[in-house]
């Protein structure tokens, strides 16, 4: 446990993504340990999300807990799988200094940072789960936490990308590569939100029976958000 916390501590302090290393196109991260760490952090937050439905007093309620804990790391892994190949191809075409392995490591680091922030919110989620029975409130709280974690993770990546492609050296090349990463950040956010929609439920509406995933082809995340906003304003 202590070892893993130390690993997370080093990552969050940016010890794996030092200025000199990044500028030389090196990302010296222990990839496997990082993957295990990310999965563990995802499990922690996923379980805290699923706790709401699990404490609803229904039959086999524990399944909600297991499903959410398993699906949260999966959400990030699948989002990476969808967005990484094209990011890499376009970055390489723009002569990005990062090779395939380094690009993947950098993104994996950003995702681990996001999951680290999420896991740090887990006690808050658990606390509110035990003290409220409003499903809507829990949904809102989780969306806010995910948004905050996303922002922190993207900030981490943004800083790293600016170090890898500094302004001075190869101005045109750097500008192009930075633009590609910026577009990727946007795509990652959009895909992540919709991926969460495909993999839902995470919190679990107490009115609905347990399901590993619900039918996701009937609507999408963005339509849902717009509808929810419109309903509130009516």
């Amino acid at each position, binding site marked *: 446990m202590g070892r893993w916390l130390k690993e997370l501590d080093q990552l969050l302090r940016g010890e794996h993504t030092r200025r000199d290393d990044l500028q030389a196109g090196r990302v010296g991260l222990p990839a496997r340990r990082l993957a295990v760490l990310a999965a563990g952090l995802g499990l922690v937050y996923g379980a805290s999300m699923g706790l709401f439905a699990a404490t609803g007093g229904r039959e086999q309620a524990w399944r909600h807990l297991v499903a959410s804990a398993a699906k949260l790391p999966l959400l990030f892994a*699948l989002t990476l*799988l*969808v*967005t990484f*190949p*094209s990011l*890499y*191809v*376009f970055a*390489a*075409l*723009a*002569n990005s200094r990062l*090779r*395939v392995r380094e690009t993947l490591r950098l993104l994996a680091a950003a995702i681990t940072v996001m999951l680290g922030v999420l896991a740090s919110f887990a006690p808050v989620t658990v606390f509110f789960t035990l003290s409220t029975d409003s499903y809507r409130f829990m949904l809102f709280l989780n969306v806010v936490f995910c948004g905050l974690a996303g922002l922190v993770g993207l900030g981490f990546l943004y800083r790293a990308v600016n170090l890898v492609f500094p302004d001075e050296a190869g101005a045109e090349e750097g500008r192009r590569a930075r633009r590609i990463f910026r577009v990727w950040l946007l795509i990652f956010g959009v*895909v992540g939100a*919709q*991926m969460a*929609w*495909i993999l839902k439920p995470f919190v679990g509406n107490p009115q609905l029976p347990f399901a590993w995933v619900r039918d*996701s*082809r*009937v609507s*999408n995340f963005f339509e849902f958000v717009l509808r929810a906003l419109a309903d509130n304003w009516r």
Partner: protein
Amino acid sequence: MIAPRLDVEGLLRGEGLHRVGGGRPPLGRLALTLALGGALYGAVMGAFGLNAEQALDSAIKVPLLVVVASLVCLPNFWVLNLVLGLGPDFAAAWRGLLSAQATLAVALASLAPVTAFAYASTDSYESAKLLNFAVFGVATLAAQRTLARHYRPLLARDRRHAIALLAWPTLYFFVAGQLAYVLRPFIGNPKFPTVFLREHWWGNVYVDLWWAVRGL
């Protein structure tokens, strides 16, 4: 993994075997890259209706589309280069052309997860069509980037290369558009039976488009 063997990284960066310039192009590697990348995207493209037969058909048809469209346009490109007096540079231009086709396939393959993800998010056939148009558009931009890299030294040497560089995509898209029409369906409308080629496959997309526009 197969990507390092094919030197996909080198292809995207214009390094090593795939460096910019003359010399014999690594034909086998480029052909295999094109076939595998195109087939991978085709398989995903045809998976809209979760129909294995359509996925297999499209896996064959996407690489076929790219290869046949190139072959049909190649004689004209060769003659044009010779007429413009660019014969000595043809080897380098040919290399660039092949690399661009392989880049198209790599870009398509890299976008395959995006298409699979979008298919999981919607059951609208119209959206699937739009998405695939966009994917092919983006992949074409990637291919253009490789072609531009190969043409940079050529253009510096002789401005007339600009004519060949413009003529190639113009003719290529003209032919590829018609070929895609002949080879349809690629996505496979779930409302229609699965076939390798549509019953009235031998038509002309441009004539049909003309009548469609007149019909408005």
